[in-house]
């Protein structure tokens, strides 16, 4: 299997130029930092509020931007051009994911700084955020491949944004509705649990299972995206 950084970089640079001229989509990356700045100024921020912003960044940047980038390639028939080129599935999906990855990390970093969040263990939180980013990028890719247009992708991604941005509220309902216990395995809830444990001074030994669950979500979302992508190569 070939793996060419030149091709990946070419797709990344193309996406960067294209995205910077697409205000309709690029504007959303400013929303999480703006909200983070408000929360930071209010002075009564909690772990839940920090992670509401971080999960919102995942939904709006990793999933929404990624799904729009892929859906637009489909809508304008440019994805077929990439598929017919010598670039492999890995090169195309890596190239197409790189911009959303960079934007997500930068948006989250900026939001964390503006909200005034200082994690007790930066390394564990960084690993958890990067793993979560991969899950949301996979999900965005999947939605983009499923949607026929940018408009459709924008609609499909809405439930994702709602569930994962405000899904942490599910925890409060678990005791009342035991069926919601399954939802505690969602990556956003796992991330929140990691954050709470990190603040309580718990080390990597008691956190790895949460990281593994998020990693499993990330692998599952990308594996499904690759399968759907390969199906889309043939009409």
């Amino acid at each position, binding site marked *: 299997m070939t793996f*060419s950084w030149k091709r990946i970089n*070419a797709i990344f640079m*193309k996406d960067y*130029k294209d995205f910077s001229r697409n205000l309709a989509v690029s504007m959303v990356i400013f929303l999480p930092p703006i909200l983070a700045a408000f929360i930071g100024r209010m002075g009564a921020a909690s772990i839940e509020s920090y992670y509401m912003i971080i999960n919102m960044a995942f939904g709006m940047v990793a999933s929404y931007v990624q799904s729009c980038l892929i859906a637009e390639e489909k809508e*304008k028939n440019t994805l077929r*051009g990439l598929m017919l*080129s010598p*670039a492999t599935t890995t090169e195309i999906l890596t190239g197409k994911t790189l911009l959303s990855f960079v934007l997500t990390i930068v948006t989250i970093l900026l939001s964390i700084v503006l909200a005034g969040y200082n994690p007790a263990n930066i390394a564990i939180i960084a690993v958890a955020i990067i793993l979560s980013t991969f899950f949301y990028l996979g999900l965005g890719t999947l939605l983009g491949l499923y949607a026929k247009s940018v408009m459709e992708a924008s609609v499909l991604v809405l439930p994702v944004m709602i569930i994962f941005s405000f899904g942490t509220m599910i925890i409060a309902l678990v005791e009342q509705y035991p069926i919601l216990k399954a939802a505690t395995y969602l990556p956003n809830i796992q991330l929140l649990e990691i954050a709470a444990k990190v603040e309580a001074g718990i080390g990597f030994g008691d956190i790895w299972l949460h990281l593994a669950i998020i990693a499993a979500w990330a692998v599952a979302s990308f594996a499904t995206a690759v399968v759907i992508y390969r199906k889309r190569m*043939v*009409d």
Partner: protein
Amino acid sequence: MENIIEVKNLEKIFANQTALESVDFQVKRGEVFGFLGPSGSGKTTTIKILTGQLLPTNGEAFVFGESVEKLKQSSYRKRFGVLTDNSGLYVRLSIYDNLKLYCDLYDVSYTKIDEVLAAVNLQEDQKKRISTLSKGMTQRVTLARALLHEPELLFLDEPTSALDPVNTLHIYEGLRALNKKGTTIFLTTHDMQEADTLCDRIAFLNKGRIQLLDTPNKLKKKYSDSTITVELKNEEKIVLPAGAEGAQQLYDYMQSNQVETIHSNEPTLGDIFVQVTGRKLA
């Protein structure tokens, strides 16, 4: 000569509609092969199957001696180029940026961009965004992109459908030059003049079936009624039959110095298509 494309008993059915039926043909390396037919006759379906974008329902298709299934491999995709009817260009990027991306994807030097833009008469416009171009200019950029890596085999789906006559001639020159360098061209069109000008051999496709396949000259001879039209100086036009009788009449007109022009009555490819299929090309 080696076959670069070989199609055997190809069939494609969409839902309940047959798009291709018992299609057989070969394309020799180095030739310009025309696939002619009206809209909906199965031309684009054939290109999609031959480039691995669509699976046939039945039959076999080989490109470069390998089953089209293998065209999914990166190494094979370097060897062919495709110009489709929908541009597939990034509209917010410039012509140059679009071509630069494909230089990187095909591992081609950026110096090639100037060369292909000259071939499609767009050198002066390379900084223009695709969104600002006319349909004809966009089509020329798409063609430039397909020429960028000098493929062994080039699939062209209606390459000049949106072009003005001057640019059409310019594109023909470019395609002939590319063909001289060794690129095999598979051209679909419903423009009979284009097929006659460019193609070594042509196939008439109608309702998913190949009706005729030969060189344009042989087809025209085969369907010619062998008559000639003589235009006299008094503007009268006379159709003379083939053979001794026609020759004698022509001799008489020439002897009496009445002849203005003489034309052989060869049918056009369009006439032949209508005669064979009963349909008009549109």
